[in-house]
């Protein structure tokens, strides 16, 4: 099976988010970058599906030149090839992102049996690119997937709901949005990293522009309640004070 996974380069935020002076981006001066968590699991799932059923895997990203780092990381854990839709690093809204991805997919010589996305990106969290892409391609799509099993030419997908798991059957070619927890991604090996340096990346610069329907004006760090934690004590000595609080709350 021919599997495509779409990923996004996002910063590794730590304990506190700080903004750039113009308040239109997170200050990333002291931050590293990674592939958004749900998508990382999508990449691992693609590799497992092809290990089991044969075929090939491709990773795609729409992002700045630096996003090649994430493509090489994904190829280091086993993805065969990459597509880099290079931007100047500015934000593309979900409609523009989906359009660029659809154009890239339609330009591919071989069709994909399965196209995977993360349920939502860690940063913008718009929850919609997978669904827009599937609409444009005329393919069935389901989001929030925590398990995929290939059943002939269909995919048995499980979506987590409060009561358990809901099961869907999608005929391929299909689009699936996955959630972290579908698997535990593997770490890259040193030989994997070496091989990744030589794997092919097809780069292009999609046309963006035009008026955006969902346009960020500025970012806002939410007010923390200005909490002053009440120190109950140090070490084991604090235990009686903790139990007092638990009794006050009524959870004892």
């Amino acid at each position, binding site marked *: 099976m021919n599997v495509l996974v779409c990923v996004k380069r996002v910063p590794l935020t730590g304990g506190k988010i700080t903004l750039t002076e113009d308040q239109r981006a997170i200050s990333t001066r002291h931050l590293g970058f990674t592939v958004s968590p749900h998508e990382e699991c999508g990449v691992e799932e693609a590799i497992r599906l092809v290990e089991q059923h044969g075929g090939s895997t491709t990773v795609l990203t729409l992002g700045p030149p630096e996003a090649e780092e994430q493509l090489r990381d994904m190829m280091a854990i086993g993805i065969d090839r990459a597509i880099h839709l290079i931007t100047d690093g500015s934000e593309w809204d979900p409609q523009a992102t989906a359009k660029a991805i659809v154009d890239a997919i339609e330009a591919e010589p071989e069709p994909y049996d399965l196209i995977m996305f993360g349920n939502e990106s*860690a940063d913008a969290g718009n929850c919609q690119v997978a669904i827009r892409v599937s609409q444009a391609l005329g393919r069935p799509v389901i989001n929030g997937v925590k398990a995929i099993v290939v059943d002939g030419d269909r995919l048995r997908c499980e979506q987590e709901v*409060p009561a358990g798991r809901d099961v869907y059957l999608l005929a391929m070619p299909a689009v699936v949005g996955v959630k972290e927890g579908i698997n535990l991604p593997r770490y890259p090996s040193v030989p994997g990293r070496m091989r990744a340096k030589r794997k092919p990346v097809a780069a292009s610069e999609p046309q963006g522009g035009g008026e955006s*329907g*969902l346009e960020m004006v500025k970012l806002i760090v939410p007010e923390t309640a200005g909490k002053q934690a009440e120190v109950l004590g140090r070490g084991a000595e604090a235990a009686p004070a903790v139990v007092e609080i638990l009794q006050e709350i009524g959870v004892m």
Partner: protein
Amino acid sequence: MSTLVFIEDPADELSQQAFAFGRSLGPDVTAVAIEEAGGYAPAAWAQTLAELAGQRSVTAVVGPGSDHGNEVLAHVAAKLDLPMAANCVSVTPGEPATVIRQRWGGSLLEEARVRGRPLLLTAAPHAVAAEPVSDIELVDVSASASELDQVVRVVERVAASTGGVSLTDADVVVSGGRGVGSAEGFSIIEELAALLGGAVGCSRAVTSAGWRPHTDQVGQTGTKVSPEIYIACGISGATQHMAGCKGAKRLLAINPDGEASIFASADYAVIGDLHEVVPAISAEIRKARGSSG
């Protein structure tokens, strides 16, 4: 302004919050639920809402910011080729409208201009107070939903394995982070949770290390919890983790590092090693109850 609010379940908080959110746009609000006879089918449901919105010339369609709410509204947006703003905490109508919406699971907010008619929005969970939904219109799935729309639907439900208190329902969550040190180290966390009738949670560092299953993970890409008290043991307080426990009424942080960022969000602090503190709390609870085991 006339608004259609997609109600997933009138008894569910998130749908009630979406209703309240819809009413913030103006008094002309119609709550709509889809007749579920065939089971949840996001594309077919979205087709139904899109047609209804067109027939009634509504200016906005609002849904809950639940998984299904975001999924259905995304389908409406894809079908109509219109923008959709997910997980909004507030909206100001206008040409264009302005929303404040959540990024990073709520750890960051964004002010955005949203164009399109109808305006397509989902309400961020717990951003507005729930309001009981009045006068729900129950509609059948559109007869003109295409085969492609109909084909993705729930065919089977697998029940959750019962056993233990669910993280989402628990009044007490005892959660362990990297500081716990190993899978075995969680036995003291489990002990304290059991004594308090609570659930065990963990950070993403713990699931990445393979010490606990992802179903225990609290955070932006894990489970969001809202207990009476969240006891965070050896958790530094990364923003993606806090996005999962900010719903807790109270937070007790146990950490040897007095400068750990979690303390900035905590109501109570114990500076110390969880390997000493947690068993001491369990022992104290047993003592208070007058039992030895």
